[in-house]
């Protein structure tokens, strides 16, 4: 037999876990220390926000919450590379990307606090809300990209799933269609090694998830998802390519879910402790902070000031969240259809009347 096709998967990294540069030439944006500081500040803010959200859940002030601890570089890198006119189709922990796009932290808290108003968030109004059914959002991103392509708009769609999501048919269907139609879409797989309690090794026999792009006939790139410079660089490449009509890309970002899956999960039941301890040493904030310090752009005093500012901002957002109160009962019905059918008008009255009896 002869070989009729082969593939190779490229891996991108600039900063190793010790903050050593592994490549001589940095991407252009990374030569601008203000640009790096902007991303580092957001990563720090996300960390403070995430810690606070977990604390709110633990004290009964928030519902189940999906932590993003450890994913900050992947998420902020995505958000930093996107333009407002691009469209974002997240799963449910990409707060870093969303904050970069103008979503407010109290809106995230509203969603996890059981309030649909969180989905009516700030930022680009065409962005989709959080998507809980795994990988279904890959189709929406492909659909949005189809709309952009048909209308000849220089916009791209970006969507994120986890490693478990790549086992879904939706994942393959969407990348396959995007390949066939050369759609302006970037499919991100945030490979954090665990789909709740199922490790990657039980999820697939593939050595990389990026190579699953080969089956869709599209480019697949693996990136160190804890290296903000590498994530931003790969996303810039994929987005430029998409916006200039050169088709879709699959980006596998290697990261680690340091937290539990959600606050309803206890990862100590299934995950080796030393693996988590090792991951903590490689987490994304440490290395970019060290790098910024090494180049003289950051110091302990600035760090202290930043964390105080983040805490203050997060507190202000928590206040907004707590002040939001319960939405009106009628709002369950008001947005079901543009033109509410009679039966629903009657049910709305019934629910409002019922609620009026118990305040």
């Amino acid at each position: 037999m002869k070989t009729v096709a082969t593939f190779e998967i490229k891996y991108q990294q600039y900063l190793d876990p010790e903050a050593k540069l592994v490549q001589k030439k940095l991407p252009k944006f990374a030569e601008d220390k203000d640009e790096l500081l902007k991303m580092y500040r957001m990563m720090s803010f996300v960390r403070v926000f995430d810690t606070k959200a977990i604390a709110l859940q633990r004290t009964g002030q928030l519902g189940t919450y999906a932590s993003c601890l450890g994913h900050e570089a992947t998420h902020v890198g995505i958000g930093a590379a996107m333009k407002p006119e691009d469209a974002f189709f997240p799963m449910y922990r990409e707060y870093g990307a969303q904050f970069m796009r103008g979503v407010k932290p109290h809106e995230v808290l509203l969603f996890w606090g059981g309030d649909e108003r969180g989905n009516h968030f700030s930022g680009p109004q065409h962005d989709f809300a959080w998507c809980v059914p795994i990988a279904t959002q890959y189709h929406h991103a492909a659909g949005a990209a189809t709309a952009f392509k048909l209308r000849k708009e220089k916009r791209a769609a970006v969507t994120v799933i986890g490693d478990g999501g790549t086992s879904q048919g939706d994942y393959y269907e969407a990348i396959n269609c995007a390949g066939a139609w050369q759609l302006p879409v970037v499919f991100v797989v945030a490979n954090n090694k665990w789909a709740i309690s199922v490790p990657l090794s039980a999820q697939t026999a593939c050595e990389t998830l990026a190579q699953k792009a080969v089956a869709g006939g599209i480019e697949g790139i693996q990136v160190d998802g804890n290296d903000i410079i590498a994530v931003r660089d790969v996303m810039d490449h994929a987005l430029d390519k998409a916006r200039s009509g050169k088709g879709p890309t699959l980006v596998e970002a290697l990261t680690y879910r340091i937290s539990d899956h959600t606050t309803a999960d206890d990862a100590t039941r299934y995950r080796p402790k030393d693996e988590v301890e090792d991951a903590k040493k490689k987490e994304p904030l440490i290395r970019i902070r060290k790098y910024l310090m090494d180049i003289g752009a950051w110091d302990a005093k600035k760090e202290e000031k930043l964390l105080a500012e983040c805490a203050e901002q997060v507190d202000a957002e928590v206040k907004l969240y707590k002040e939001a109160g319960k939405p009106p009962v009628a709002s369950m019905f008001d947005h079901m259809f543009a033109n509410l059918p009679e039966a629903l008008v009657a049910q709305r009255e019934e629910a409002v009347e019922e609620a009026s009896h118990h305040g």
Partner: protein
Amino acid sequence: MAKVAMVEAIAMAMAYELEHDPSVVVLGEDVGVNGGVFRATAGLQQRFGKDRVMDTPLAEALIAGISIGMAAQGMKPVAEIQFSGFIYPTVDQMINHAGRLRTRTRGRLHVPMVLRAPSGGGIHAPEHHSESNEAMFAHMPGIRTVMPSSPSRAYGLLLAAIRDPDPVVFLEPTRLYRLNKQEVDDNGEALPLDTCFVLREGEDVTLVSWGAMVHETLQAAAKLGEEGVSCDVIDLATVAPIDFGTILESVEKTGRLVIVHEAPRNCGVGAEIAATVAEKAIYSLKAPIERVTGYDIPMPLFKLEHDYMPSVERVLKGIRKVLEA
């Protein structure tokens, strides 16, 4: 005015909207060069081009999912699912996303899409091609489900479905695709959604049906008419949400109700109609409500399909039972 069959009326409606609204696109398996396996999109790609009439990869969840993505970004996709038994992979997208995106974003995003699919049996089709699955969609909040029963209603209701700002599942009875040609004026006039159509007026019994079964129901009503029994015949048309006003008014007049549908009886749309009439008009009833429906079994292969589907005789038997009660 030429007489057209339902399948041609459906193509006419899509052509009208493609012509008049640049945000409308048609997509699905074999809808392009082939014009659809039932010919419902015949000639559309030749006329409007490959960007407006798109052959998709063979993946039904994809077809529904990309339609949602397109619709939420300002387009009006009209997606075709090739055969009725192939619609189930779309359920995830329809119930989790199409039906709830508007409400879960509190009106920020909405999904003006149409999911068209053939429906029902009676044409000797292979397995998984003859399903009646309207009750499944009717149970999904946020989605309208429409089933036409004639060429003109197919034309007017499909126009309405495409123009509606919310998702519509449009189930087309394959048995009617080429039966009972009618004159249809291609004037772009839509018919109202959420409204029943009263096809025949009478005093003695109310007959409610939809899709292909409207025809058996009308034949039964005609036969009874010869015997001096007059029937109100209501075509439900929009299966969800149901226009109960029209049904209740009729039942309050006749005092008798027979519901005819091809889909299985258990938790069928007929059950919802019967329950609501029982709740709101039970004191008008002179007899128990009767349902004449398919059985709670998978649609059999075609040697037995006519034993599954309600015949005119079964409909007549059901009506007589109610008249004699």
